[in-house]
Every structure is written in structure tokens, then in C-alpha cells.
């Protein structure tokens, strides 16, 4: 031993003064840290930019301008027979209601002494959403006794007027816009001054159904949120038990041979299959072959289950493998059966990992769009689905698909809606991740 050390030259430098070698080593370590910080910084900056851009574009979707005026629900127009029978009254279409609102607005403005310079009655009517007559009609048909009374009605302002209060539409842009004139905007400002118009939180955006391309102000996410929720229920109910059972079998019980190797490789491959392929599969198997309805959350849920399974299986197997083998030995050595050793000891220890994997899989599924387009979930749906289980077969939309279809629409107000929908989607994703963290904590606290 002494021979070897006597051959090497002794370091004679002081340890207070770092030698060039040490300096180089320290410099490279500092460089490496700087790269790391730069990478993280870039990532965080991109994230902040993304969040700011989405929130600044989308927060206005949660606000909505309403016009509140007294409306005389004239019997002569709305219930010509005068018997308050909703079936008879249903013969008056929304076209019958529009003039009632127009007249009410006009006469109220005159009463309040608000000048309507340069705004003809058609332009005036255009300031109210096309959705408003339908809403009033629904109200009247539901409560026939209010016909003949004069009530304060709250009506959606049209998309352009709404945009004016949110800063999207300005007097300059109105000059070039055939859908709105500066005179209408001036009137809107005057009405707001007089307290006839105000902008406040828009629950209908979250709870209401989608609306057609001419009525961005009425479009809501209700059906899409329910559709996504139903699909997540299907995915959770199918993918978690199947995935966990498959992983336990593969990891703890299956013999290690050629066949299980092939299965293992193919599960990893499945995780990498583009999601649109699952959509094609779903279309071919669930819709064309099994005859399930199009646009239904059950089909979407099944397709997303197929997509999520590999993620859950991979995460579950990794966390099962991370449980030290000594725990299994201990249980088996005490005369526990394989099954007892897995369910009493291994599975509880693997639980945090399994839950995290599952929630990450669910979050992926929640944001998935492409396969849903193929199975028809992009259809325009205004009807709310029933409660599950029947509701699983009703047509619905889904959150990411709703974002997609809103960005396809012409009216710029839908950009705001799409960003708002993205915010809702992100809120769901973040809450799911928080849930994952919380569940992890809870289960890990059992040491």
C-alpha cells in the first residue's frame, strides 16, 4: 500500500488557495447550476406568459352585460286567446316576442328622456341579444299568469354591446363594423349611465348551454362541463379498477416469461399511441360495431378509458415495484398468502403512487380532444343530458371540444368565450392536481 502512494507526487498547495483543477471543477459546477436555473426559469416564464394571456383574454367571459327594463307583457300579442293555456300560447314564436321587447325598450327610453339619435328601431332591437325573446318566452310559458303585467325584465345585451363594456368594441372599430354603429354605442353608454345596463358576473357562462354562432353572449359551458364530468366518471369507474387489477396481476402474480414480456412491451407502446387512433378505434368498435350512440359520454368515456389505462398501469406497476421486497417476504414468512401480502401490505404502500398516476391519467383524459372529435362529440348540443346512468347515453359536448368549436366560429366574441372555457378547464386540472397532492399526503401520513 505504501508503495503506491510514494509514487504519486504530493500536492503541496495550500487548501486556502484553490488550485486550478479545483477552480475548473467549481466553475463547471456553477455553469451546470446556471443551466438548470435557466431551464426552470424559461419554463416558469412560459407558464406565466400562458396563464396571463389566457386569463387576460378570457376573464371577461365570466362577465356579462344585461339590460334591465320594465316590459309590458301584452295579452293581445302573447296570449291572443286570452285563456292562459301554455299550449295555445306556445303558438306565438320568438318572432312574436321580439316586437314586445323592442317597444318596451323604445318607450322606456323615451320615458327616461334618453335620446336615440341615429338609432332606428331595428338598430335598437339589435342591441338586445337574439336570445332575449326566447328567454322571455320561456319565462312566460312557464308562468302564464304573468301575461298582462308589466315586469322588470333582465335581458342579455347583444355581443357587440357587451364587447363595448368589456373594451373589445370601441367607437373606432364600430365605424368599420357592419354589425354595430357608433350611435348604438353612444346610446349604450347613456343607458348604462341611467342604470339600465350593467355588467356583472355571468353564471350562465358556467351553467348554460351552448348558443348558435349569432349569439355568443348566450353561449355557456354547462353541457360541456356535464359531458366532461360524465366521461370522467366512466373513466374512473373503468380505468382505475381494471388498471390496478391488471398491474397487480402482472407485477405480483404473473410468471415472468416471453408472453408477459410481450404484454409489458405492448402496454408501454399503447401509452405512446396517438390519441386520434383511439378515436378511430372507438368509432369502429363502440359506434359502428356495438351500436352505441354518437356524441354520447359513454363512448367518449370508453375511448378515454382505453387511453388512460396504459398510464394508470405504468404508474401502478412502478409504485408496486417501489415497495421493498422485504415487506413481501415478511408477510409471506408469517404465513400470509400472496393475495394477503399484496392487499394488506403492498397495495397500501403503493397507494399514493397509484392515486397520483390515476389522477394524472384522468387529467390527460379531461384535456383530450382529438378522439372525441371522431366520435361526434363536437356536435352542437343545447339539451342538457339526464342524470347518469341514462344521461351517459345522451349527446353532450366536452370542455376541450367546446374550446375547439368556439375557436372555429366567426364572431370575435367567441375568442373571449374560448379563453374563458380554457380557464375553466385549467381550474379543473389544477384542482385535480391539488386533489392528487392532498390524497398523497393523507395516505402517506400513515407512515
Amino acid at each position, binding site marked *: 500500500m505504501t508503495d503506491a502512494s510514494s509514487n504519486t507526487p504530493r500536492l503541496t498547495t495550500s487548501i486556502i488557495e484553490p488550485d486550478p483543477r479545483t477552480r475548473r471543477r467549481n466553475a463547471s459546477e456553477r455553469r451546470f447550476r446556471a443551466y438548470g436555473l435557466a431551464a426552470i426559469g424559461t419554463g416558469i416564464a412560459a407558464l406565466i406568459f400562458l396563464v396571463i394571456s389566457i386569463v387576460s383574454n378570457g376573464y371577461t367571459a365570466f362577465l356579462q352585460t344585461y339590460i334591465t327594463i320594465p316590459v309590458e307583457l301584452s295579452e293581445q300579442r302573447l296570449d291572443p286567446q286570452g285563456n292562459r293555456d301554455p299550449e295555445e300560447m306556445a303558438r306565438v314564436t320568438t318572432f312574436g316576442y321580439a316586437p314586445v321587447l323592442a317597444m318596451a325598450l323604445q318607450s322606456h327610453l323615451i320615458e327616461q328622456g334618453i335620446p336615440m339619435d341615429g338609432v332606428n328601431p331595428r338598430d335598437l332591437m339589435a342591441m338586445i341579444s337574439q336570445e332575449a325573446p326566447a328567454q322571455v318566452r320561456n319565462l312566460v310559458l312557464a308562468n302564464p299568469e304573468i301575461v298582462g303585467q308589466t315586469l322588470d325584465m333582465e335581458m342579455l345585451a347583444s355581443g357587440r354591446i357587451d364587447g363595448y363594456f368589456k373594451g373589445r368594441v370601441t367607437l373606432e372599430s364600430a365605424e368599420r363594423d357592419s354589425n354595430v354603429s357608433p350611435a348604438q354605442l353612444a346610446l349604450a353608454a347613456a343607458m348604462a349611465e341611467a342604470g339600465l345596463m350593467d355588467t356583472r358576473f355571468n353564471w350562465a357562462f358556467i351553467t348554460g348551454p351552448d348558443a348558435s354562432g349569432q349569439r355568443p353572449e348566450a353561449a355557456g359551458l354547462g353541457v360541456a362541463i356535464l359531458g366532461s364530468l360524465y366521461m370522467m366518471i366512466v373513466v374512473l369507474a373503468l380505468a382505475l379498477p381494471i388498471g390496478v387489477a391488471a398491474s397487480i396481476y402482472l407485477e405480483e402474480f404473473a*410468471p*415472468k416469461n416471453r408472453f408477459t414480456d410481450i404484454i409489458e412491451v405492448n402496454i408501454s407502446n399503447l401509452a405512446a399511441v396517438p390519441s386520434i387512433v383511439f378515436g378511430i378505434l372507438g368509432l369502429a368498435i363502440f359506434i359502428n360495431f356495438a351500436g352505441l350512440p354518437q356524441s354520447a359520454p359513454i363512448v367518449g368515456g370508453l375511448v378515454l378509458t382505453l387511453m388512460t389505462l396504459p398510464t394508470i398501469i405504468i404508474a401502478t406497476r412502478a409504485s408496486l415495484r417501489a415497495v*421493498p421486497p*422485504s*415487506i*413481501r*417476504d*415478511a*408477510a*409471506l*414468512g*408469517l*404465513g*400470509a*398468502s400472496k393475495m*394477503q401480502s399484496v392487499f*394488506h*401490505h403492498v397495495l397500501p*404502500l403503493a397507494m399514493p403512487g397509484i392515486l397520483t398516476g390515476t389522477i394524472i391519467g384522468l387529467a390527460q383524459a379531461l384535456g383530450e380532444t382529438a378522439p372525441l372529435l371522431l366520435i361526434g362529440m363536437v356536435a352542437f348540443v343545447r339539451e342538457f343530458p339526464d342524470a347518469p346512468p341514462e344521461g351517459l347515453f345522451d349527446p353532450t359536448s366536452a370542455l376541450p371540444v367546446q374550446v375547439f368549436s368556439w375557436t372555429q366560429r366567426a364572431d370575435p366574441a367567441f375568442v373571449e368565450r374560448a379563453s374563458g372555457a380554457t380557464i375553466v378547464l385549467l381550474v379543473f386540472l389544477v384542482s385535480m392536481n391539488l386533489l392528487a397532492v392532498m390524497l398523497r399526503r393523507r395516505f402517506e401520513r*400513515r*407512515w
Partner: protein
Amino acid sequence: MNDMTTIERAVTTSEKKIDAKGVNVHYADTHAIKNVDVEIDDKTVTAFIGPSGCGKSTFLRCLNRMNDTIDICRVTGDILLDDEDIYHPKVDPVQLRAKVGMVFQKPNPFPKSIYDNVAYGPRIHGLAQNKADLDDIVEKSLRRAALWNEVKDRLDKPGTGLSGGQQQRLCIARAVATSPEVLLMDEPCSALDPIATAQVENLIDDLRSRFSVVIVTHSMAQASRISQKTAFFHLGELIEFGDTTQIFTNPVDPRTESYITGRIG
């Protein structure tokens, strides 16, 4: 080496508990145990010694069929426990392991409370009629493992929070709680400090009154201190098997002598 004093100990009974004949173990192509015959007596501590990799653990794990959990492991030959073949196709290894308990080299308490660690075996085997019974078994087992006084106030605390020596005694208590007939220990002291080792050794000597104990050890001093019978393995073969006193004072085979005097190891 001055602690290698062999203690004369009367062998209380010499009823045969386990009789292994012509045991061969293969791991795929490795022939790990070659034609080994061993008799293990009841109420006796039998030590397996030998250099690393000679197959002590492998043979020990044959005795409660823990080798079944290794896919590539193949065991042939006869191992009789009370004259019943433990490798008989009708034998349920789960039942066998309730009779032949095991303590591992590395302490491996479950990440549960001390109480639940000890109570686990009795619970899955239905040994307790009610909670009071179970409490009783837990207390007795912990006392038998000389751990009761240290943990009686914190039975609901995690077993993983104990020191290494305490954890190993907890594992012994856990194994004892199922009332096995044979207790297998694979180098139970190799991860322990000298004081904890001494405690476990005392414990093993006590356990002898009720169980037959088979212990694998690296330390010849330990083998000579606590065992009545010793088996010396070398390269998968059983070289010599006999009374501990005889093996350590008057070995027959020159390889045994070289090993206990420190020339092979």
C-alpha cells in the same frame, strides 16, 4: 477470537423435528445446494455456518418453502417436518409457513404500528377470539422477544421508528406471535451492534425452550455461543454436521478446521 469459548450446554431433548434428505437446489444453471442431508432436532438451536455464497440461506429458505417465491429456483429431495413431506403437492406453503416462522437478515417490520406488526400473524391465522386475546398474544410475544418494557407505552407508534436492534426483536416477536414450531433466522444479527446482538442472542437461547431454532450466522463465535448443533456448508455441500462442541473443538474434516480457524472465509 478470544470470545470463541464454547459453552457446554445440555441438549434438553433430541426429538427429530425436520429431516432433510438428498436436498438439491438449482437456480437456473447454478447448482446451489448439492445433496444435503440434515436433521434438525426439536428444542434445539442449530447453526448453519460457512463462507459467503455457500448456500446457507438457500438451504434455510427450503425449510419453509420461501424459495417458491423465486421463479428460477428448483428444489428436489425430501424435507420432512414431523414426518410429513413439506414439498408434497398437497402441502399449502401458506400453512407450512405458519408452522415454520422466519426472521430475515435485515429487520423488515411492516410500516404499521408496533401492535399491528405483532398482531398481524395471529389475525390472519385466526389465533385470537377477541381483542383481549389478541392483546394478550401481543404482550406475550413482545415479552418473549424482550421488547415489551421498551415499547409498552408506544404500541401504536410505527414499528419502523424503532432502532435497528429493536426492529429485529420486533420481527422476532412478530414471528413468535404465530406460535410456530420452528423458527428460521437468516443472519439475524448482521445488521446489529454488539449490544443488540447480545440481546438477540439471549433471546434465542430463551426461545429454545419452546421452538426449534435454525440460525444462519457469519460469526463462528455466535454459533459456538448459542447453538447446540452446527452444520458447516462449503460450496453448496454440507461438509460436516454435529454437536457444536465437537465441531469447534474437534472437527473431522480439514475444511471445517480451516474455516473455523479463519483460513477459508
